[in-house]
């Protein structure tokens, strides 16, 4: 059983990529459509069972990250609240058709490490979802309902 602390603790991930900081940043942002597993992790995949056309990361503060479905509909995943190429960006995260939900925050930083690039991600703000205790974390978890469905189909096939 999860404790309260675990539930609200930030998710952290890091990876060292064998390329320049600039290239790593561009790949993560402008070229997100080339690597994000859309067939598995997208709203369209959840609703229709197959991948959307693409995902677009608008590289500026105030921009958005959104997927374009097969029907040409744009569905928002996040608002870009900080965009500082090639070192950092921050997203206000809620990949869902329901946009009036509590949001979590995703920060990704890129730093040089002897010619390679250390990429660090922090997904935080779970306590915001937990403030309404009985309905805790629903905003995020359910925002990914489609992601889960896509995953479930893959996992069970």
């Amino acid at each position, binding site marked *: 059983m999860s404790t309260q602390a675990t539930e609200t603790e930030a998710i952290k991930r890091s990876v060292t990529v064998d390329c320049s900081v600039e290239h790593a940043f561009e790949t993560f942002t402008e070229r997100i459509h080339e690597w994000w597993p859309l067939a598995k992790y997208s709203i369209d995949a959840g609703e229709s069972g197959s991948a959307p056309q693409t995902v677009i990361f608008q590289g500026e503060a105030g921009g958005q990250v959104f997927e374009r479905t097969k029907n040409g509909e744009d569905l928002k995943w996040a608002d870009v609240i900080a965009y500082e190429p090639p070192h950092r960006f921050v997203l206000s995260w809620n990949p869902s058709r329901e946009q009036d939900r509590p949001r979590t925050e995703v920060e990704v930083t890129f730093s040089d490490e002897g010619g390679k690039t250390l990429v660090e991600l922090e997904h935080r703000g779970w306590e915001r979802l937990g403030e309404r205790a009985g309905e805790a974390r*629903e905003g995020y978890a359910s925002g990914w309902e489609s992601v889960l469905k896509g995953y479930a189909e893959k996992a069970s096939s």
Partner: protein
Amino acid sequence: MAYRDAIDALGDRTRRAIFEQLRSGPRAVGEIADELPVSRPAVSQHLRVLKEAGLVTERRNGTRRIYRLDPDGLGELRDYFDEFWSEAFAAFKAMAEDERRNG
């Protein structure tokens, strides 16, 4: 793992719709059924699956059963997304390094 049960439980369209409804607060079976094109017994069955998956809890209020989301079950889902980022990172790393090799 409980999160797998949760993921499997949410693999069904109707159960996702029920889960969505409960995000806005606790509800009785009848209230849930009113907004869905399925019968009340079917809703009860889906609620049972969600409950077994740790996603919802029920309590009695007189003769009514009130359902709400279970924060512990949702904690398991958060754990699941921990894995999700690992996978996304692996795909990202492969792409970033592949491009470099390709010049």
